[in-house]
C-alpha cells in the first residue's frame, strides 16, 4: 500500500517537473530541471522494483546526459530560448491532445498496475525466474539475461555506442573552423551590424 502511495506522489512530481521544463525559457534552468526529472525517475524505478534500471538511469540519465547538455550549452553560449510569436501553440496542442486521447482509450484494456495475472508476467518471464540461477549461476536475473542469455544483444549494444562515439568524434574532433571563413556566419554578422 505504502509503495502505491509513494508511486503516485512521485509520478505527480514527475508530471509537474515536465510542465516546468516546457515553461522555463532559461536553458540552464531547463537542463537542471531535466536532471531533477531523471533523478525522480530513478527513484521511481526503485519503487517499481527495477533496481538495475534505477542505477543506470541515475548514472546515465541524471549524470552523463546532464553533463553533455551543459557542455553543449557552454559551447553554444546560448542561455535563453527565444520564444517567437510566430509559433502558434494551437496546432501542436491539438495534435498532442488528440494523440493523447487516443492513447488513453488504448489503456482502458490494459491490465491494472501490478497485476500478477497480466499476460506480460505469466508467459516467458516465469522461465527466467525459475531457471536463471540453476542455468547461469547468477542470482540477479537481469544480469543473467543481459550478459548470458542475451550476450550477443549486449555486444550489439556496444557496437551502437561505439558508432555513436565515432560519429560524435567525427563531428566535433576536426579543426575548429574559424568563424570568419564561414559565409553563413558572415552574412549573419553583416545583418546584425546594419
Amino acid at each position, binding site marked *: 500500500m505504502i509503495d*502505491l502511495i509513494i508511486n*503516485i506522489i512521485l*509520478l505527480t512530481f*514527475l*508530471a509537474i517537473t*515536465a510542465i516546468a*521544463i*516546457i515553461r522555463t525559457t532559461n*536553458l540552464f534552468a*531547463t537542463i537542471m530541471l*531535466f536532471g531533477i*526529472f531523471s533523478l525522480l525517475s530513478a527513484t521511481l*524505478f526503485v519503487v*517499481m*522494483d*527495477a*533496481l538495475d*534500471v534505477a542505477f543506470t538511469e541515475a548514472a*546515465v*540519465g541524471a549524470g552523463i*546526459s546532464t553533463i*553533455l*547538455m551543459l*557542455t*553543449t550549452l557552454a559551447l*553554444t553560449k*546560448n542561455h535563453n*530560448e*527565444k520564444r517567437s510569436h*510566430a*509559433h502558434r*501553440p494551437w496546432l*501542436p496542442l491539438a495534435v*498532442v491532445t488528440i*494523440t*493523447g486521447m487516443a492513447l488513453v482509450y488504448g*489503456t482502458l484494456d490494459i491490465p491494472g*498496475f*501490478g*497485476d*500478477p495475472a497480466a499476460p506480460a508476467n505469466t508467459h516467458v*518471464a516465469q522461465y*527466467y525466474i525459475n531457471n536463471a540461477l540453476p542455468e547461469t549461476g547468477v*542470482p*540477479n*536475473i537481469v544480469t543473467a539475461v*543481459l550478459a548470458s542469455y*542475451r550476450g550477443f*544483444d549486449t555486444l550489439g549494444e556496444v557496437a*551502437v*555506442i561505439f558508432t*555513436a562515439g565515432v560519429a*560524435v568524434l567525427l*563531428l*566535433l574532433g576536426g579543426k575548429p573552423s574559424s*568563424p570568419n571563413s*564561414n559565409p*553563413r*556566419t558572415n552574412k*549573419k554578422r553583416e545583418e546584425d551590424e546594419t
Partner: protein
Amino acid sequence: MDFIISHYNYWIVIFLMMVGLYTVISRGNLIKKIIGLNIFQVSVFFLYISMGTVKDGAAPIITEGVKLYSNPLPHVLILTAIVVGVATTALGLALVVRIKESYGTIEEDEIHEMDHSL
C-alpha cells in the same frame, strides 16, 4: 476508484509522452527539442517498467524465502534502451554544436530564414 489507481501510471506515462512530443514540435530551440525527446524516451521506459511490476513482488534477485518476483524482462530491455538513448542524445547534441558553428544560432526559425527554406 480502483480503476483510476491501477491505471494512474499509464495515464502519467501518456501525459509525459505528450509533453515530450509537444516540446519537440512547438519549441524552436534545438537544445529544448532534445530535452523533449528525452522526456518522451523516459515515458516509454515507465510504460515498460510499469507493465513488469508485480504487486508485493520483490526485485528480481533470487533470494531464499522469496516466492514472488517482478518481471525481469522489461528491465533488461530498458537497460539497453537507456544506454542507446544516451548515445543518440550525445549525437544530437554534437549536431547542435556543429549547427551553432556554421549558422551562428540554434533557433530553428533563424536557420530557416538563413537557408530561405520554409
